[in-house]
């Protein structure tokens, strides 16, 4: 391997790492606020890519049906809860949030089908289509068991992933898609040819990490999300509703996943079930960050991307094996350093 190949592989690795960063941060965000390891999270990215591809060919994305089904289910669940608590006065609000808002982009896409839309409009529409999926799933599946153990929540999330894969196959079909590149520009950086697409991925990833940081550090809503993650009872006692911060976390994370879906769609062929592997690799990054640290998660995700890129050159057959094999030393190191801190605390 010469320097040039190494540089190309590094570029590739960082680009896919940047995608895992976005998904990994979303995973950590959802886990911190709701204690749910949201296994179907990669699916959100894949569904965005599939919706975008479908809009490109002038079709009606399967997301429309998926969102409609979920919105009706969530509204039914919420309405039942309101009736049971004799809080019917909150019904109009519930209808707005669980039925009308999710269905607005779906309706827009439904009526726009067949017409050719500009690229930015297509991207915005696909993102808007996908955004409600995770919050709706949260309302239907997780909120009724919000106080359950992390293990139970994880088990439910795994089951949810299988259900969602099935729905994905039903609504999107088995074909793989690839969207048009977002940009055709090619740069020549010190003799190395760099795709505009790669740079776009990097720029988007860095920009969204920065925005997330600003949100957490400088806005009251962002701080409320952190507060919920640190202490749920404490949050309730100052009037922060964990259900609301949970919804915000799901929305924000879905936006990150959606962006990564838009970015990855032109470089990789995406199937209805491609999301699982995306999510799993991002999860390796999140594990490196111990599901709590955003910066370490980002670093871990880039590491996963690089490892994947280099192993695909040397040992392409073992690419996935090595990436997931990385979990073992990381978990060992984590468990060792973890027991270390526990001892320190015991000594205090």
């Amino acid at each position, binding site marked *: 391997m010469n320097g040039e190949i190494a540089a190309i592989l590094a570029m590739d690795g960082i680009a896919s790492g940047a995608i895992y960063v976005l998904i990994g941060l979303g995973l950590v965000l959802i886990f911190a606020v709701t204690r749910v390891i949201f296994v179907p999270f990669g699916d959100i990215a894949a569904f965005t890519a599939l919706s975008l591809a479908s809009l490109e060919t002038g079709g009606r994305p399967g997301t429309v049906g998926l969102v409609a089904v979920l919105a009706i289910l969530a509204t039914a669940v919420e309405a039942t809860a309101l009736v049971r608590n004799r809080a019917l006065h909150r019904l109009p609000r519930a209808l707005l949030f669980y039925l009308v808002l999710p269905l607005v982009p779906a309706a827009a896409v439904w009526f726009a089908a067949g017409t050719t839309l500009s690229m930015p409009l297509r991207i915005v529409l696909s993102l808007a289509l996908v955004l409600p999926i995770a919050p709706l799933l949260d309302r239907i599946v997780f909120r009724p068991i919000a106080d359950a153990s992390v293990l139970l929540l994880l088990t439910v999330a795994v089951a949810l992933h299988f259900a969602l894969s099935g729905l994905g196959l039903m609504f999107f079909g088995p074909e793989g898609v690839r969207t048009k590149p977002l940009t055709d520009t090619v740069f020549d950086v010190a003799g190395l040819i760099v795709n505009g697409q790669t740079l776009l991925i990097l720029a988007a990833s860095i920009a969204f990490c920065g925005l997330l940081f600003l949100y957490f550090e400088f806005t009251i809503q962002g701080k409320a999300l*952190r507060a919920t993650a640190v202490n749920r009872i404490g949050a309730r006692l100052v009037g922060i509703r964990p259900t609301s911060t949970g919804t915000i976390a799901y929305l924000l994370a879905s936006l990150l996943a959606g962006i990564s879906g838009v970015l990855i769609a032109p470089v990789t062929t995406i199937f209805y079930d491609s999301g699982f592997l995306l999510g799993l690799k991002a999860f390796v990054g999140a594990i490196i960050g111990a599901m709590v640290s955003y910066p370490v998660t980002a670093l871990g995700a880039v590491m996963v991307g690089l490892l994947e890129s280099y192993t695909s050159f040397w040992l392409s057959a073992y690419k996935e094996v090595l990436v997931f094999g990385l979990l073992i030393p990381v978990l060992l190191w984590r468990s060792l350093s973890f027991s270390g801190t526990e001892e320190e605390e015991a000594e205090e």
Partner: protein
Amino acid sequence: MALLSIDQVTVAYDKVEAVRGVSLAIEPGQIVTVIGPNGAGKTTLLGAAIGLLPWRGRMSFDGIDLRRLDVEARIERGFCLVPETRELFGDLSVSDNLLLGGYSRRRDSAGLKQSLTDVYGRFPRLSERRDQKASTLSGGERQMLALGRALMVKPRLLMLDEPSLGLAPIIVREVFRIIASLRELGVSILLVEQNARAALETADFGYVLETGEIVHSGAASALMHDPRVTASYLGGHHDAGLEARGPKRMSGPGGPRSEEGELR
């Protein structure tokens, strides 16, 4: 009309009734204390009142049936709890903790700024440590932060669970001085304490809770002289030499008493 009215409330963990048929009332501007031994159900009662535990019976705050309000809606109406466990945001700075205390008033930024200045004025210690993480504070500072965070809500009724627990005597005195001074802000207080003497010295009215039931109640000054209360909670007879934990004198309406020390 009572600000908080608790009427025949029962709180059960599965089948064990930790609080049985308790009734009490707090008038606006009043400081009311509930004293009693460990495990009497004091914390359980507060948990039910704030909406963290399920309960049976009738409770209303400011005339609103509490069944209709969840925890967050209570906070929005100025009904707060500072729990025994404080429940601070350990990873966040002191100033962020206070800022989030005002979460329910987040649209009133001018009012929040004013409240923040007030809290820093009341607790200069918190002002000095405003950029420190809450988890690095000492026990007394934590209690002050918990109180300060609750004041950011602009409370009308503040429920304090064991505010003196685990604090050094000098800090305990400080905490009770602050509680008494909250009266000037027009804040009503429901104070739950094992430090019965300090609590009764601060309060207007008192209830004694034993094994989930109210066994005595009355004006705080009367309770302090009630032999049944003094025997169990105020260190028996008026002989000196007991460990001094509480404040020597409180200038509250609980009436002057200065002879002996403190129980426990």
